[in-house]
């Protein structure tokens, strides 16, 4: 991998990459247009031709792995294939080249996507309403918690300031709680890999009437379905708390089961995981929030509605709204992509997403379980979790080293050391868009690596 200089090092004084038009209105001296305003002296941007720029970014791009190149076994990240129709859609002028403040009548097709998605996501999540405003999962968590808070405040329960968060939860959960002014209390995971009900009861009791709610990832962060979910929701509800579902792992459920039917009051889902929005090297994503009806009065504005004449409108008239968590209507183009993904499957086939995702994961669990130790030996959902504790004890080789070695075989490494509760953890999520032969080839590579660990630990 040769080094590519930075764009600044490639700059040459006086080079031009874009020829801008001459000014077609009479040019006035800037000083007289902006009297008393301090103006900048230099503008130290790079100077390159268009071709220089293209080459620079093409060269650095080729240093990158990507899902269009191969398998990302990243647990908890749901790196699925990004369909190409979505890329075509987000270039269409009625989606890409419209201004958020255009009059509603001029953006009916544009609004239809939002309206449909509010409804479709509600149906998929089993919720009563959806806000598309959050820009990512963590943003959705924050919104969800704000809605819970607004609900409590509206009922005179402003004192409820404690949120239960499993130790195994993703870091955004406690961080979002803190951003909402909440304190978090940990809940431990038991030997089954599930929420420890005894610990939960203990902590609920400890909260007294200050319990605001619980954030639970389901399927959870070790890839298991919280089979006592209905009980958990009952316990939290009984203590006056609201149930928040971190829907990052929703891919295991799409078309099969709905968090709303399990007792959750509010949840987010990551369109950049479950609904094929590309990760873009770290974003942008989209984190819509679904809610039960009792939280609807607090939704951020606007929501998209269809009036009696069948015209799509932006409704700002929610007197109890919490306000806004984003400036406009969310990550619009991400929503367009997710619209296309859902529409492709439709009501007839939506169940195939979770079925193939879970099938692939369990296949990995069993097949790779012959070589690695399965962290929790039971049917998993969208991902399989392994512990390399014994390997480390026997050979001194750590999960990190195994994961990095897989790069030499042409794969992205799996997720490592998350969640922290599994020692020397490797977490593998295939998604529904990987094929049996890709998975088999990956397993063979892993087997080779583990064999190497025993025979030839230096490589």
């Amino acid at each position: 991998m040769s080094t590519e200089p930075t764009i600044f090092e490639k700059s040459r004084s006086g080079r031009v990459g874009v020829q801008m038009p001459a000014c077609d209105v009479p040019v006035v001296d800037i000083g007289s247009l902006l009297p008393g305003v301090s103006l900048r002296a230099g503008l130290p941007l790079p100077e390159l031709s268009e071709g220089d720029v293209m080459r620079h970014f093409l060269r650095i791009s080729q240093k990158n792995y990507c899902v269009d190149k191969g398998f990302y076994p990243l647990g908890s990240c749901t790196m699925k294939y990004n369909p190409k129709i979505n890329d075509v859609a987000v270039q269409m002028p009625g989606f890409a080249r419209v201004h958020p403040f255009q009059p509603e009548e001029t953006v009916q097709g544009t609004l239809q996507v939002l309206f449909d998605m509010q409804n479709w996501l509600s149906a998929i999540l089993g919720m009563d309403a959806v806000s598309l405003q959050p820009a990512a999962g963590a943003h959705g968590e924050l919104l969800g918690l704000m809605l819970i808070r607004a609900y409590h405040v509206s009922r005179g329960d402003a004192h409820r300031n404690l949120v239960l968060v499993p130790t195994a939860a993703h870091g955004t959960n406690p961080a979002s709680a803190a951003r909402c002014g909440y304190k978090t209390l940990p809940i431990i995971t038991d030997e089954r890999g599930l929420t420890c009900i005894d610990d939960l009861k203990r902590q609920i009791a400890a909260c007294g009437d200050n319990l605001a709610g619980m954030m639970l990832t389901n399927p959870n962060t070790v890839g298991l379905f919280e089979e006592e979910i209905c009980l958990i929701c009952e316990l939290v509800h009984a203590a006056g708390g609201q149930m928040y579902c971190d829907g990052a792992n929703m891919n295991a459920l799409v078309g099969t089961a709905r968090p709303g039917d399990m007792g959750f009051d509010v949840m987010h889902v990551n369109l950049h995981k479950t609904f094929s929005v590309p990760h873009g090297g770290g974003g942008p994503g989209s984190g819509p929030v679904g809610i039960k009806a009792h939280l609807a009065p607090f939704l951020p504005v606007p929501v998209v509605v269809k009036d009696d004449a069948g015209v799509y409108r932006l409704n700002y008239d929610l007197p109890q709204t919490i306000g806004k968590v984003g400036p406009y209507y969310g990550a619009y183009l991400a929503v367009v992509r997710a619209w296309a993904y859902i529409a492709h499957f439709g009501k007839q086939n939506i169940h195939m997403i979770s079925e193939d995702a879970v099938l692939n994961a369990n296949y990995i669990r069993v097949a790779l379980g012959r070589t690695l130790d399965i962290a929790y030996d039971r049917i998993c959902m969208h991902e399989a979790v392994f512990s390399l504790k014994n390997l480390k004890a026997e050979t001194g080789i750590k999960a990190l080293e195994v994961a990095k070695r897989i790069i030499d075989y042409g794969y992205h490494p799996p997720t490592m050391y998350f969640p922290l509760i599994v020692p020397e953890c490797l977490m593998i999520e295939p998604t529904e868009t990987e094929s049996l032969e890709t998975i088999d080839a990956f397993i063979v590579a892993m087997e080779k690596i583990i064999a190497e660990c025993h025979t030839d630990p230096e490589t």
Partner: protein
Amino acid sequence: MSYLPNTDAERAKMLAAIGVNNIKDLFVHIPQEVQDAADFSSLTDSLDDMTLQRKLITMSSNAADLNSNACFLGAGIYDHYIPPVVGAVCNRSEFYTAYTPYQPEVSQGVLQSIYEFQSLITRLTGMDVSNASMYDGATALAEAVIMSCDLTKRRTVVLPANLHPSLRSVVETYLEPLGIAIRTAAQNPVTGVTEIDTLTEDDACIVLQQPNFHGVIEDLGAAVAAAKLVGAQTVVSVDPMSLGILETPGALGVDIVVGEGQGLGCFPAFGGPLLGLFACKKEYIRRIPGRIVGGSVDTSGRRAYTMTLRTREQDIRRDTATSNICTNQALFALAATVYLSVMGTQGFKQASTLCLQKSHYLAARLADAGLPQRFSGPFFKEFVITCPAPVVDINKALLEKKMIGGLPLPDAPNDMLVCVTEQRTKEELDSFVDVLASFVKGEVA
């Protein structure tokens, strides 16, 4: 389904390997009553690939887009020129289908692009450090204000009266649960500039929007001076396009600069996804929200990039992290990087200057036609005019001539916030004047 590779034969083989009979056996842990409750009948019918493409074309066509209509709307989202090389780069699979660059060995492309993004933003703003992006300009401002409270250990912030209403709403929503109080600095009704003589020692920071919601250029130096007197910080939400001309906030002593980066190579896209910019003085680096990429040298002596200062972030610091942000806007940061690289010193300055010249030309012509500006302060590319009729009516007339009119102000339905970017031609500006002049002359009801 076109995206699902496995065939029924393969599925059967896998089920056998797992040792179950039926796919439903893999969902046994989900209570049966939950599964039974699931109802997806309100979804659309499954669309085949051809019909899906058709349907998307049809929906997209049901809108007045900015390719076919000249846009005079701004207010935070701008119709700036996007060089085609931006799309050529961002549509490369290696960038847009890549994961977050946690594994530097297979992510040097994304990491280098973010490193360059950060460098470009510091150069543009004159600040010391930049992060790898925030969701948008609004949440970036909210994060900046919270960071300022953390740094100063104060619990009141001063927002200007002429802050963009969406920005204000987001900041309010973010601050409310944290119990941070907001005070408002008044706007001079004549000049449109913020009055900044009201700061106290309880204030963590004063926020200014540059140019402000009404398009008027604020005096950042004065704000910095006033803030310093009381030990407060200055936070500025800047339109990056104005930085082709205006003095950098860094040179004027501003502590934290945020902004909406959409204008730097991203489509208006009905307002999202966007690109939050976040830059500050280097002494605050350990308190920055979100990701930062640093350059270093790898084991074989070659330059390599990696995410740095990770211990600020939520996945490590959990509830004491500097922010909860995880996924950010990497691909749009790349778009801005390509945009600024190809526009370069000359192109970017020209674009900025064209905004300035053309907006002033339009303002002058409108004034001649009897449509005065509401504020006398200096402006960059947006300005407010008071119209003889409701702006919504005028905009209907403009639309008939394939123009998207400006924003009716929330507080004054006859006031229009007009925006002129480098993309508007003299011909379009003159047509705009003609339509508005016809209202002045009473030719339109």
